[in-house]
């Protein structure tokens, strides 16, 4: 673990703590305080976006463990979110579970399904494995729409009853925010600890060289499956919170497009870095909104025909272009840039 010079760990507690220096403590406390009071100031629009980002961070952290730490590519994260979402909806609507009871069940069911689709990792890796998980993205929505449409609603949307917590009605974005952000922080903490535990080190060993890992006595296949399970449990949690966020569940929300972009978020953020994944999610989600906002005013500057063309095409064009340029100039992701900025501040004014 790296730290600024002059900081020494003189006890074991200090050595294993996540928040180390007084500066980190103050930043953490201030950050949590800002997060706690945010809904009092922010608009519904802002809260809606924050909630979506927080949910996406949970799902992306799961993929971060699988792809960033363990080195397995998955293109089924969206589908696993769908498993969680539909499990939650069906438990709540048909078996009368409360949201809080259905949530862990949804995580477990998503974890099991993820485990099944992780089985091919026994024999394959790389892009062949990505294709195996891609099949999840086709098989799971097919099951949702066709097997029991009377329960899942087929292709149409099913609403859920908004849960409440200690008398607090969670139907508003500003109130459900506390639930979502609680889980997000918990997941970040969990991931951080997982990454530096025995399991996390095993994951990294498998990513770096699976043969060497096996020779050192790791049960590679077991750890790979564990990684798949954790990844899809995160997805299940994210899917359940997604249901809370929308207030309804529809199979259209968990498309291949979403799954591929989860992969995109962690790559833009920087593989294997926890803050990197968060940056990646925020970057892509905000960019998504931003490009939608800029195209009408820019289109208004042009005459009719060109303006109409710009209005329809500028958003995806800008989105693609920004990410492309970003990748070309910062191929190692936002996490790398973040390190550079941190170093700049530590050494300021003695830059090099």
């Amino acid at each position, binding site marked *: 673990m790296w730290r600024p010079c002059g900081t020494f760990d003189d006890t074991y507690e200090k050595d294993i703590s996540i928040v180390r220096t007084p500066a980190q403590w103050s930043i953490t406390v201030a950050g949590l305080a800002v997060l706690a009071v945010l809904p009092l100031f*922010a608009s*519904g*629009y802002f809260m809606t976006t924050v909630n979506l980002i927080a949910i996406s961070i949970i799902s992306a952290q799961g993929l971060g463990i699988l792809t960033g730490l363990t080195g397995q590519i998955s293109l089924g994260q969206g589908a696993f979110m769908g498993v969680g979402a539909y499990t939650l909806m069906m438990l709540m609507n048909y078996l009368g579970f409360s949201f809080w009871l259905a949530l862990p069940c949804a995580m477990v069911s998503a974890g099991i399904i993820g485990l099944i689709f992780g089985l091919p990792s026994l024999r394959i890796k790389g892009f062949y494995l990505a294709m195996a998980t891609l099949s999840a993205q086709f098989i799971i929505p097919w099951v949702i729409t066709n097997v029991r449409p009377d329960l899942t609603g087929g292709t149409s949307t099913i*609403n859920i009853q908004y849960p409440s917590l200690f008398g607090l009605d969670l*139907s508003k974005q500003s109130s459900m925010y506390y639930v979502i952000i609680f889980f997000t922080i918990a997941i970040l903490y969990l991931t951080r600890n997982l990454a530096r535990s025995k399991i996390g080190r095993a994951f990294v060993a498998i990513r770096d060289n699976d043969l060497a890992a096996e020779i050192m006595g790791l049960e590679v296949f077991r750890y790979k499956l564990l990684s798949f399970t954790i990844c899809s449990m995160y997805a299940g949690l994210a899917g359940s919170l997604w249901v809370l966020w929308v207030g309804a569940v529809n199979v259209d929300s968990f498309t291949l497009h979403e799954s591929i972009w989860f992969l995109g978020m962690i790559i833009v953020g920087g593989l294997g870095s926890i803050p990197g994944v968060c940056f990646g999610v925020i970057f892509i989600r905000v960019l998504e909104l931003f490009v939608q906002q800029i195209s*009408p005013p820019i289109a208004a500057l042009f005459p009719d025909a060109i303006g109409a063309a710009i209005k329809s095409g500028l958003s995806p064009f800008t989105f693609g272009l920004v990410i492309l340029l970003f990748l070309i100039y910062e191929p190692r992701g936002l996490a790398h840039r973040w390190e550079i900025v941190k170093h700049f501040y530590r050494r300021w004014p003695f830059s090099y």
Partner: protein
Amino acid sequence: MGRKGMIGILVCCFFVLISFPAGVLAEKPASLSIALLGDLTGPYASVVGPMAPGAEDAVQYVNEELGGIDGVKLKLHVRDCTGKAALGLQQYAELIGSTPKPLFFGVPHTPTAEALREKIIRDDVIGFFPGSVPDLYPQGNSYSFYALYAEQSAVFIRWLRANWKEKRNPRVAIITWDQAYGRAMLTPEFFDYCKKMKVDIVAQELFGVRDLDLTTHMVRIRSKNPDWVIANNTGSGPLAILRAAKELGMKIKFANNVGGDWGTIRLDPELFEDSISVMHMASFDNTDHPGIKKVFSYLKKNKRGIKEQTAFYVLGWQYVLMIHKTVSDAVAKVGWDKLNTAAIKSEMNNLTNWEPLDGVVKITYTDKVRHSHWLRIYKIKGGKLVPPGGKLGGSEFVEAPDLTPLKFR
């Protein structure tokens, strides 16, 4: 840039982001906000896309020719959710948080509309949604563009039965897209209605948007030997169906709902010859119609292309004119200071046989029925939509059979 500068910028960004103020409707507002939030460039674009220019042109018409609503100009906010309900939800949150908040939301995208159904009730605004049952019922704040998709098909079934000469029952096969819009016609009420009308549904096939060959599906349909094939499709869907039928040499006739409008037919007019389309509006090809003339004058004025000349362009008009009518009436009754959603809703529910633009469309909503029953049936002749003739096949609006699910009546 120094450290202080960067921190300053970050702090500024933070405050800009969190300071979206909320507000209330003023006594006589400077303008009235309305919103259109739909899939304008995504999978449904070729159908839904023209609704945005349609609404823009209609707003221009209301503001310039009708002088707004009692002098208050309409202001249209268009958002493109590119076919993603999540983005639609964010854009909804953005619009509902703006001042003044839009009183109406036109949402031509079924999944987004379904997700917004409960939210517009809570936020006390009015939604203008597609014609599938989960969008509209139980009765809330949402109103449909046109009749339920099942009712559109039912109008065709009734016409078919009325003009059926043979002794045996007509045999009809259904083939439609395997997604929310395509499946919206497959309600139990529709099948009951077919049974009641003694029309046999002999086959039911679903296909995916990216299936480029439907020979398999059509061979299965051929083995059931139907007289007609009906669909609730648009764009490439009907094209794939008819092309497969033609290749197999099937002598089969095809009927479609509002999806079978000009945008679809223009892809291959010959192929659609003699097909039936059930529409909610007067035909663009009836150029003597005064309302259609008005619409054409705006199409020309704003240099719209041929691709904008579709049913959803007119829906944009219908949306804005409906707002003009109901808000004007509500203001006349209660005044601007007491104008609220309840007052507008009561005007909406009293729209009876309302025919804007000399009857380009015809609308009836009631407290119980939130979709209009008035439809027209057309046959495609030489790429034009003309009345098919026969019983119930005139050039007038016909009232569709009521297929609202029983529990919502």
